[in-house]
């Protein structure tokens, strides 16, 4: 992605407030700097919040109702509150098994992406060698190929040639490979920005390249590494297509489990809501903890 992309200006801007938001007014200095929201702004905010959170809250509450309650009054509240749906999901071994698979696959994906990505970005950022730019270009071109394009051969290669079908590694390795382009693109400028003096001082002190990498490059690339790690984790946690083709039975991840449960017991609406709500909790907690990183990463991706 090209383009100059303005650097984000730290701090908040205060655009003019539109007293009556959309009404053009001819008087000079009709509006002072924005201090709060006009009623229209609050109304829009409220609508947006209701539209955004409505389905999530409805699903969470729906899990506390019975199917009879849901059928009788779809828009009602739990009356009485029923814990049984949630208890049933929490007592089911497959739910925990799916959660474990999702977690392990996401962790393997993240570790491989970050470690291999940092290692590859290091010489691509700081060495001078003839094949540097062509090598970088190879990774960048990977951005053009979504996993969907290669999904059928990927399935054949992983199951028949590598015999990694229905394993954690069989899903994690290709996910890491497809995450590498964006990882290297984000990390390279980070590593380029490390001052030469640090490296030179380390060389004078007799450090090897590998020591420099571990002692200087890895610690200094922290923020970038966390960002790419979080992006890789979220992508893996939410992935559907590759796990759908590769994983069966006990090896399924949460998205597969949710989709299965929904199609097998689609008439058990309350059960579906309980299962889905429990499945979204880890993602939401992780998101709240890592919010800034995710947002920065996405904004970084857009700013090119």
């Amino acid at each position, binding site marked *: 992605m090209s383009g100059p992309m303005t650097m984000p200006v730290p701090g908040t801007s205060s655009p003019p407030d539109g007293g009556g938001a959309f009404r053009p007014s001819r008087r000079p200095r009709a509006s002072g700097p924005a201090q709060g929201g006009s009623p229209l702004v609050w109304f829009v905010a409220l609508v947006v919040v209701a539209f955004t959170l409505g389905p999530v809250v409805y699903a969470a509450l729906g899990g506390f109702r019975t199917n009879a309650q849901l059928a009788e009054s779809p828009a009602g509240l739990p009356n009485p509150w029923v814990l049984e749906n949630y208890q049933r999901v929490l007592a089911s071994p497959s739910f925990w098994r799916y959660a474990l698979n999702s977690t392990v696959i996401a962790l393997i994906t993240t570790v491989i992406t970050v470690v291999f990505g940092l290692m590859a970005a290091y010489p691509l950022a700081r060495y001078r060698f003839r094949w540097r730019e062509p090598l970088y270009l190879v990774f960048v071109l990977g951005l053009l190929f979504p996993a969907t394009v290669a999904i059928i051969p990927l399935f054949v290669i992983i199951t028949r040639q590598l015999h990694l079908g229905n394993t954690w590694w069989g899903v994690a390795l290709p996910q890491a490979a497809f995450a590498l382009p964006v990882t290297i693109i984000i990390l390279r400028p980070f590593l380029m920005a490390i001052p030469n003096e640090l490296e030179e001082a380390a060389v004078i002190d007799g450090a090897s390249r590998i020591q420099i990498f571990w002692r200087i490059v890895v610690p200094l690339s922290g923020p970038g590494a966390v960002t790419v790690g979080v992006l890789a984790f979220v992508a893996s946690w939410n992935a559907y297509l590759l796990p759908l083709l590769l994983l069966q039975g006990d090896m399924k991840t949460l998205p597969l489990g949710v989709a299965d449960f929904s199609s097998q017991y689609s008439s058990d609406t309350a059960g579906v809501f309980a299962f889905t709500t429990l499945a979204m909790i880890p993602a939401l907690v992780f*998101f709240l903890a890592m919010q800034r990183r995710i947002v920065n990463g996405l904004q970084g991706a857009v700013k090119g």
Partner: protein
Amino acid sequence: MGLEVLFFVGPALTIFVIFVVWPIVRALQFSLYRWKGFGPLVDFVGLQNYVSVLTNDVFIGAFTHNMVIVVLSILVQLPVGLAIALLLNRKMRGQGLLRTIIFVPYVLSEVIAGVVWFQLLQPQYGVVETLLGAVGISGPEQGWLGTPDVALYTVFFVLTWKYLGLAVLLFLAGLQGVPDELLEAAQIDGASWWQVQRRITVPLLGPTLRTWGFLSMIGAIQLFDMVWILTRGGPANATTTMATFLITEGTKRYNYGIATAASVILFAVALVLALLYQFFVLRRDVAEADAGMRRVR
């Protein structure tokens, strides 16, 4: 030196070649054979798979659906997202919380979002039906997802629920880059709020909007998860996408040749659109930046 480079780049390059480059090469190869996934690759058919994909009504429909989603995203999500971002871009209490809330659907997987909406949209006892009924609107008899004429738009509606927050968040971030001085100067000159947005803020937000458009377009072309959960491409192929077409051909009918030909076509479509977008839309950013630099000097 060479060995050191190999040491550092080797692991990444290895998995990249095995899991990205090699499957793509194989996709090109498979697409030239009639192959059901078993036995050796012997039945070479040239470009016949491509011909049969491109003349297949279901695939043409799927391509059309992808394009409808691309166009609708830009026509609907861009103005709505921009309007919300412009209205919310002010100091107000709870703004941080608001941003967090807006972003929640983006963090959920398409599967979870799809499963929840599937229940909400159930024809008889779904809550959408009930709420619309309360204001006197009755949905189609077969349900919003079960009626061929409206199913694709329903899918688009759910996609908008999931991705609007990303647009708003990115636009808000872009708005932070608009210098206060410009806005203040315009205000002093007597510009109204609406004039300021139209003449200054939105043009300066151009690069962010155009890049968002690019990401949105690429995502819409690869659309799979949400459709698979909500409709499986039905009813009567009303919501198939190129990706659901190739997955159905590959994993249900074992037509690996057809499926990989479709995936190569999907890639070609994405590439052509990306290049056209680069040429006609993103190029302006580079040109403007150059002009801006010259002016500064």
